[in-house]
């Protein structure tokens, strides 16, 4: 049985197979409408999420499956002090697969160690968000036709932005990548990411000004400064509008540069960019459903009968 904790849990070949399946779903949706009949997805969301939870639920429902779960810790036994390990043992008896989001980093990994059903990390604190990464990779592959030889700009909250950490880890495995990290000093990418890049001789730069580097980029990954990651309100207020991508800045970008964003967007991308053909963030949402459908199908196939609860 397989789980998904990090994009690196799948080999590049396995990811290619997953994306092929996602593209097949995209163009032949009808073929998959009963692919999960009789199967139940548990969405265990200990912290609020709209997009990811609904995307998982939509994915399962479109394949004829059912969904159970909770959407905040207050409505689960966690509010009574139940451990993650105990919760997943219980969920394993109710569902066939689980998508878990937790505010504590590593919680889905703890769950996977005690679970008899596949567990998908749907975001753990500021750590990893692998299904967003699968969404990002599928979007890039579908729109650019490849996943190598890019100069990638990542901008905003690179310290707590788990989507960024997962994406960098995943892109490290493709050839010809160069990373440009654009962030204020306080929100720089963590050292375990830069250590990893150094050890693999993958070029990267850390800069503060977006304007200086935007002409070089093949795609720009914007992120929101997340209020919930700050212990100090003052720091959040100071940093929240540090970057705003607008029409003026887009004039200096390549004609085919993609603008990606894991959403929700606040002020970091001006609304006037939405009509730009390079704005890709709403297409990502649709690709997110396809890739989660492909992931659910793939992981369900890895369960042996004797592993079921």
């Amino acid at each position, binding site marked *: 049985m397989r789980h998904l904790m990090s994009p690196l849990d799948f080999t590049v070949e396995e990811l290619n197979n997953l994306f092929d399946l996602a593209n097949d779903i995209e163009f032949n949706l009808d073929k998959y409408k009963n692919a999960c009949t009789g199967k139940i997805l548990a969405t265990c969301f200990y912290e609020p999420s709209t997009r990811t939870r609904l995307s998982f639920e939509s994915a399962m429902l479109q394949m004829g499956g059912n969904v159970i779960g909770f959407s905040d810790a207050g409505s689960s036994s966690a509010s009574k002090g139940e*451990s993650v390990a105990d919760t997943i043992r219980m969920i394993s008896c109710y569902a066939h697969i689980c998508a878990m989001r937790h*505010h*504590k*980093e590593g*919680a889905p990994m*703890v769950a996977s160690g005690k679970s008899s059903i596949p567990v998908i990390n749907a975001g*753990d604190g500021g750590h990893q968000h692998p299904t967003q990464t699968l969404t990002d990779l599928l979007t890039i592959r579908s729109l650019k036709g490849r996943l190598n030889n890019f100069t990638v700009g990542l901008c905003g909250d690179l310290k707590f932005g788990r989507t960024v950490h997962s994406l960098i880890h995943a892109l490290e495995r493709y050839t010809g990548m160069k990373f440009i990290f654009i962030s204020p000093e306080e929100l720089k990418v963590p050292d375990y990411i830069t*250590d990893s890049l150094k050890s693999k001789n993958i070029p990267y730069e850390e800069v503060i000004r977006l304007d200086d580097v935007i002409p070089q980029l093949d795609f720009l990954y914007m992120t929101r400064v997340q209020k919930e990651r700050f212990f100090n309100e003052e720091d959040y207020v100071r940093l929240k509008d540090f970057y705003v991508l607008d029409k003026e800045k887009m004039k200096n970008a390549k004609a085919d540069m993609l603008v990606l964003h894991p959403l929700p967007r606040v002020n970091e991308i001006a609304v006037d960019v939405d009509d730009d053909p390079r704005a890709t963030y709403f297409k990502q949402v649709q690709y997110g459903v396809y890739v989660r459908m492909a992931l659910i199908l793939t992981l369900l196939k890895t369960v042996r009968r004797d592993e079921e609860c």
Partner: protein
Amino acid sequence: MLNVGRIQEGFVLDHIKAGQSLKIYHMLKLDKGESTVAMIMHVPSNKMGKKDILKVECSVSDLNLDVLAFIDHTITVNVIKGEEIFEKKALILPEEITGIINCKNPRCITSIEQGLPHVFVLADKDTQVYRCKYCEEKYNKRY
């Protein structure tokens, strides 16, 4: 005058960085047992200038060499049997250590999950960096 005698069975940990033997004493949990321990600090050394030495009278199976290797894999471990050096053990950095150090990241699941051991894995052999298995927080040895 204090006379530190020979030990029948146990270990002599030599070439400990000066001043670090007390930390090792605690991390090996020697304070929790009843082994006879001699801690000799700031001993002149040709190789190191100054060094510490720990002599521990215990069964040879009692010492957790993984912990010792994690603390400092350059320490010389002399295994003593019958008052003689029976073996010199090489220390190898352990791939994983459990329950020795705690993750300091307040966002890590180890900060709230009951009964969850703190596990660190060797992320980079060359730089001897260990990271929390759950949140990947780096452990700074400050050693």
